[in-house]
């Protein structure tokens, strides 16, 4: 709560780090600072050990995806025989390319829609003082606590009624109306902007939309990136909605397609673990790429939301 106000709005994680480690730190006078669990070398050792646990499953998966089918469960990390064909074969054996294209389209639509709509709504809540504001914002917060399953069935019925229940539209169209979590996050960033900026703009005759688009949006770009990247991750990895809405394999997203490959096995088919592993690697890699690109913003976004507890 209080920590948040000390951060520059949209400041990078590095800035937050520096603020926390340098500015707050009093002049050293020999005293030990924070009580750590262990000494520094031991900490690094422990962290390295933990890192191995966190990284190993990835490496194992990549290694398994390069092995021949009958050797997938062999646990040596360097395969005896490297079967790179696994990766060329998945494109022929399953419609992975179609699914990747579908996933990319749905994810892009979902993230773009939610970023634009949520920032517009968040600006409405942050800038204006209007009757009913607190009650409505309370409702926004309340919807965050509502389990998604309560609205799952009726939402399906609505799309069914619109004859869109077997399309990809239900996967992203709800994002056009903003999402409580991002509205909350972005409002916090907009509130951090000095009000004088807007008052000056008003004196210059700027419209409310110009204030949003020309002042608020450019200044809160990091927060918008956080929103976009969060939603990219959520949409890319979602399985529930594709399970409910997608019937036609040509429309599948990658998680839905992967599940379908597993189901073939459940129906008595032969389990092609090497295919499943290779496809899993292919779905995960874009997320890792997104993570590295948006990392700075991403981590600061999580830390910021966490501090609002």
């Amino acid at each position, binding site marked *: 709560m209080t920590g948040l106000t000390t951060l520059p709005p949209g400041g990078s994680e590095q800035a937050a780090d520096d603020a926390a480690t340098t500015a707050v730190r009093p002049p050293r006078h020999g005293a030990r600072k924070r009580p750590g669990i262990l000494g520094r070398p031991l900490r690094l050792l422990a962290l390295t050990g933990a890192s191995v646990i966190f990284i190993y499953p990835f490496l194992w998966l990549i290694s398994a995806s390069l092995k021949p089918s009958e050797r997938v469960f062999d646990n040596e990390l360097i395969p005896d025989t490297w079967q790179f064909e696994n990766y060329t074969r998945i494109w022929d054996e399953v419609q992975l390319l179609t699914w990747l294209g579908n996933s990319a389209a749905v994810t892009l639509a979902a993230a773009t829609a939610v970023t634009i709509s949520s920032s517009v709504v968040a600006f409405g809540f942050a800038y204006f003082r209007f009757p009913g*504001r607190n009650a409505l914002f309370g409702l926004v917060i309340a919807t965050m606590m509502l389990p998604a399953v309560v609205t799952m069935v009726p939402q399906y019925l*609505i799309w069914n009624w619109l004859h869109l229940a077997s399309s990809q539209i239900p996967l992203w169209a709800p994002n056009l109306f903003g999402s409580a979590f991002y509205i909350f996050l972005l409002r916090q960033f907009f509130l951090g902007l000095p009000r004088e900026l807007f008052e000056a703009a008003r004196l210059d005759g700027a419209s409310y939309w110009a204030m949003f688009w020309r002042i608020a949006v450019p200044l809160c770009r990091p927060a918008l990136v956080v929103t976009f990247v969060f939603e990219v991750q959520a949409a890319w990895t979602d399985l529930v909605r594709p399970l409910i809405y997608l019937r036609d394999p040509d429309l599948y997203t990658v998680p839905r397609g992967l599940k379908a490959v597993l189901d073939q096995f459940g129906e008595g088919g032969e389990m092609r673990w090497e295919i499943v592993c290779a496809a899993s690697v292919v779905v995960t890699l874009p997320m890792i790429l997104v993570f590295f690109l948006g990392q700075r913003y991403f981590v600061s976004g999580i830390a910021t939301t966490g501090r609002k507890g």
Partner: protein
Amino acid sequence: MSTRSATPPAPAPTPAPTPVPAPESPAAERRARVRRWRASWRRHDTRAAYLFISPWIFGFVVLTAGPMIASLVLSFTNYDGIGPTKGVGMENYRQLFEDPQVATSLMNTLLFSAMRVPLSMALALALAMLLLRVGRAAGFFRTVFYLPVMTPSVAVGILFLLLFNGNMGLINNVLGFFGVSGPSWTTDGTWVKPGLVLTTLWALGGTVVIYLAALRNVPQDLYEAAELDGASRWKAFRHVTLPQISGALFFTLIVNTIASLQTFTEAYTAFFGTSNAQTYSHEAALFYVVYLFQQAFQFMHMGYASALSWLLFLVILVITIIQVKVSKRFVYYEGDTR
């Protein structure tokens, strides 16, 4: 506020349009400014505000409030998507208590959450404490811990099947290395949930980042004061660190619990599919939302599924309220300035 808005938009009492009005007393000036602001800006201001938030209002009505009412109504019917629908009164709710699958799935979900939430919080806190004051390296480790969060849950479910495989999986091989013969994680009912807990613990990086941010915000001088008072490391942790980060702990407790109670993808990926939907061979992995999903979209028991969703809502509500009440005593907000 509301009474004032009814007054006609009379011109502001002090007409001075100059940017710097003649200062009287600061407080009176502020009040006058507020009055003027209200009088002159109110009308188009309010309209613009509602225009800005209108997407959310529309979405709330159509995608949240409407469906909630519909779900409540449906829960008193036998709606199945095709056949004639009739009201069945409390029948669905009565059935909830007699359906053994409801009891099983609810117990599974509660047990899973009771194991996962405290474990993930404790481990995340330990990792975050380790990450403090390791300088540049913190960024690297933080990235490593966060990467699993980016892994799609379907892939996590697949990894679970592979790594926890009873005969050939890596986990049991490692255990075997230490002379422990591991259980059949994926088939033995007793071990399915612990296995899933371990699998999902892999993705605790988000919580680590939150704790790290909270820990960095603890004022240094508190530790120095504690040290002057001769407090041990444990005492400093117990009486300085924990209270100082209790806000973050509380937040992650609530969020993790709500998320755990709605666990779906990992369990569904590993144990359920279109073919074995009719059988319950993996009762130990039958989580509540998995069962709800099957009822709604595989058996098309939409009415019953709606009743199921309201039971889950109640369970989450009760657990959250208890957590809020209990936490109130322990959560400390510095200065309580909001």
